[in-house]
């Protein structure tokens, strides 16, 4: 165990100043150009969004515990699931791993002092805040009931706050574009000597793929939302059949972004898993090049499959067949990753730390999510389960079982580096178990009721579905308990946690070769890179409870 008792501190951890103590005061945070502080600000903000979206989800689940109205009426229910979806997708998952974790870790992994454009990075954070306030404000002052997809013609005719919400999403899009642009340039131009493309940590490969999608797809969402706003405010008619427009065009535009966007959500998650699985099984990642290039393949394929959201929209049979075939092809790079992770685990010295538990959970839940994606990609089955809870369950297995579980893995993996504190490992494992049981209980039942025909988004249902909804709701409380426990021990660790050593898990990428928390300039001297997955020179250091690298310590 990395967190053996009797830990004093990482040797340099408490000596001298670090990025947290470098300057003080509110403005030193609000106007900081330090990527680490911006990452922390993102982290705190998106966790609030996660809380908001999570509470909305609990309200939705509680409403569905029995047929008929339970705690709210149908309009409030529509607004609740819209709030849940919009907050989780736009405010939490999309910026979750790239903007919060990525901002903190990416320059450290590169041995750089900062991202390429620190001011753009800060702009991007404040744009996120403005966009989030816009979207949340729209919900507080009236609400939106369109779902997170804003499909026309409903979104152009409902009398709820669609414009403010889409404006919020538009601004959030800019925030996302700027982050992606920043990461691409940083990875291209700020790699240290000795780090060729194929010596980069895999998390950087996945962030690179993600950033490509952010830069190439998000502008299309931008113009789509602008058109929707123009449609509502001015009556432009591009999506209005009464004026010669085409409502299905909206769906094409929307999914051209929003399908790649699901890869914005899952690709960085895959990068996290590559790091976590390798470090915590003390074994070199298996098939490095395949894992790296499959990230780029997923980013590329992601642009070609948007039509699979529209199998029942009246699109031609030929288009359906092509989109279906392309959808199946996305499974190939995803499966390449899963097999390589499994091969990495094989005969590894597996440490069941909290991050690793989340990493293993990802392998299970993401695989279920991925395989049910093939059900939905198959035309005949999709027509049957279209717009049922089967889709909801699949989506949550990928988004929650994939992206959020990986976010939790990342949070626990880099928490000691970010805060300089260790959390309670025992509570961490209990929390992971609660999340695992609660998550599967909540959403596996939804596969069952979906395949029995329970439509998604419905406020009410026939009594035959009651038992499934009840299991789902009760298990969602279990999951919530897991999250509150996690919040408790993480916050507790900030005040009472043991000091974290420089390298608590024995990783070899560059962020583990600087103190926890890192100094303002990240590294005392610019480090040179070696193979990030070579653990042969990493040794346990009983004095700190962490690990040291003989090659680096020898050099100093």
């Amino acid at each position, binding site marked *: 165990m990395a967190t053996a008792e009797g830990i004093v501190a990482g040797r340099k951890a408490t000596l001298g100043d670090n990025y947290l103590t470098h300057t003080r005061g509110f403005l030193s945070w609000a106007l900081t150009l330090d990527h680490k502080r911006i990452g922390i600000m993102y982290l705190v903000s998106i966790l609030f969004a996660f809380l908001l979206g999570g509470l909305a989800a609990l309200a939705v689940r509680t409403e569905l515990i029995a047929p008929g109205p339970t705690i709210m009426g149908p309009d409030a229910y529509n607004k609740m699931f819209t709030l849940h979806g919009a907050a989780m997708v736009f405010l939490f998952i999309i910026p979750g791993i790239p903007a919060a974790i990525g901002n903190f870790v990416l320059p450290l992994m590169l041995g*750089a*002092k*900062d*991202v*390429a*454009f*620190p001011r*753009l990075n800060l702009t991007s954070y404040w744009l996120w805040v403005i966009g989030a306030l816009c979207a949340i404000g729209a919900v507080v002052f009236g609400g939106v009931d369109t779902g997170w997809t804003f499909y026309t013609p409903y979104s152009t005719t409902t009398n709820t706050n669609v414009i403010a919400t889409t404006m919020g999403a538009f601004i959030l899009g800019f925030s996302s*574009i700027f982050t992606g*642009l*920043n990461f*691409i*340039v*940083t990875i*291209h*131009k*700020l790699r240290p000597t000795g780090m060729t493309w194929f010596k980069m940590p895999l998390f950087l490969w996945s962030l690179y793929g993600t950033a490509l999608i952010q*830069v*190439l*797809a*998000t*502008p*299309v969402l*931008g*113009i*789509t939302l*602008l*058109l929707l706003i*123009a*449609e509502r405010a*001015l*009556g*432009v*008619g*591009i999506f*209005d059949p009464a*004026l*010669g*427009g*085409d409502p299905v*065009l909206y769906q094409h*535009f929307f999914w051209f972004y929003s399908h790649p966007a699901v890869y914005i959500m899952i690709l960085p998650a895959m990068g996290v898993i590559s790091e976590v699985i390798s470090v915590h099984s003390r074994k070199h990642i298996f098939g490095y090049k395949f894992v790296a290039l499959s990230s780029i393949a997923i980013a590329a394929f992601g642009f070609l499959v948007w039509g699979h959201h529209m199998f029942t929209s009246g699109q031609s049979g030929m288009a359906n067949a092509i989109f279906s075939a392309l959808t199946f092809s996305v499974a190939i790079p995803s499966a390449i990753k899963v097999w390589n992770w499994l091969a990495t685990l094989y005969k590894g010295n597996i440490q069941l730390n909290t991050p690793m538990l989340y990493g293993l959970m990802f392998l299970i839940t993401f695989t279920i999510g991925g395989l049910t994606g093939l059900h939905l990609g198959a035309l005949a089955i999709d027509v049957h389960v279209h717009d049922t809870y089967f889709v909801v369950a699949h989506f949550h297995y990928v988004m929650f079982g994939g992206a959020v579980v990986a976010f939790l893995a990342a949070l626990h993996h880099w928490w000691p580096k970010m805060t300089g504190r260790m959390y309670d490992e025992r509570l961490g494992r209990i929390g992971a178990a609660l999340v695992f049981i609660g998550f599967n209980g909540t959403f596996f039942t939804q596969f069952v009721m979906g395949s029995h025909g329970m439509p998604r988004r419905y406020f009410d249902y026939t009594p035959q579905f009651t038992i499934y909804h009840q299991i789902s709701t009760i298990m969602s409380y279990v999951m919530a308990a897991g999250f509150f426990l996690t919040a408790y021990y993480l916050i507790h660790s900030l005040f009472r946690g043991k000091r974290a050593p420089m390298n608590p898990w024995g990783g070899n990428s560059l962020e583990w070769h600087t103190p926890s928390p890192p100094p303002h300039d990240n590294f005392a001297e610019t480090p040179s890179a070696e193979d990030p997955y070579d653990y042969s020179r990493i040794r346990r250091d009983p004095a700190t409870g962490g690990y040291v690298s003989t090659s680096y310590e020898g050099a100093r």
Partner: protein
Amino acid sequence: MSDPAHAPHLQHHFETPQQQFDAGKLGIWLFLATEILLFGGLFCAYAIYRANHPEIFVYAHQFLNKYWGGTNTVILLCSSLTMAWAVRAAQLGERRLLIVLLSLTLLGAMGFLGIKYVEYKEKWEHGLLWGARYAPHVEGHGAEEPPLTKAPPPPAPAAAAPPGGFVVERSAIRPAAPGPEGTVIAAEEQEEHLEAAGIHRRPANVQIFFSIYFLMTGLHGIHVLIGMGAIVWILVRSIRGDFGPQYFTPVDFVGLYWHLVDLIWIFLFPLLYLIH
């Protein structure tokens, strides 16, 4: 090159001015890519509607004044030239020339927007607006069509003018279901009647063209405004004497942005004004 450690514009996280310049250059090119994709959505909408309803585009483009459009194209091309020249002047450290050229570029941008204003005003006066606001003043001006730039469809004789001033043509996409009995027969009868008289008809849904026209040129106009803001910013800095052979990055990047704005117009002009 001076000692990189003492270069005044070098930010702390870059090692050399060259690295900083290269990073900025890659950044601005990526940004331009996002701009192209932003417009890409509108070009897509244009392509789809033009492919589905070519008759709307052929009919409606006559209401655009191609001489104004052509003048604007020339103005933007010239302003691109002065902008590129300005970048050169900045690199050579010729401050006076830089100021003159940037001012000329700014003047070109103003001229462009001025002409755009005249064109928009004309459309506004004749009700040739987007979607729901489309209300051509055909009835208001008797049988007159709005002013045209080339020989329009001959004006319909008063006797043949259909009630309400509209004759509906079937678009390339067939309607899903027949309308109420009486109206369908009436429309078909009118159509036959007009065709026999050799009269060109106004296609249905002309407003879609004007929606696309205003969205595309409007978004482009906003980009011109942003470009003017950026040019004013580097103009102020060049008056202050910030630029020289050692440091001309902002001029270079604003120049690239301005060329993109120009380039988008180069595509908009033939697509909207020169249709056959």
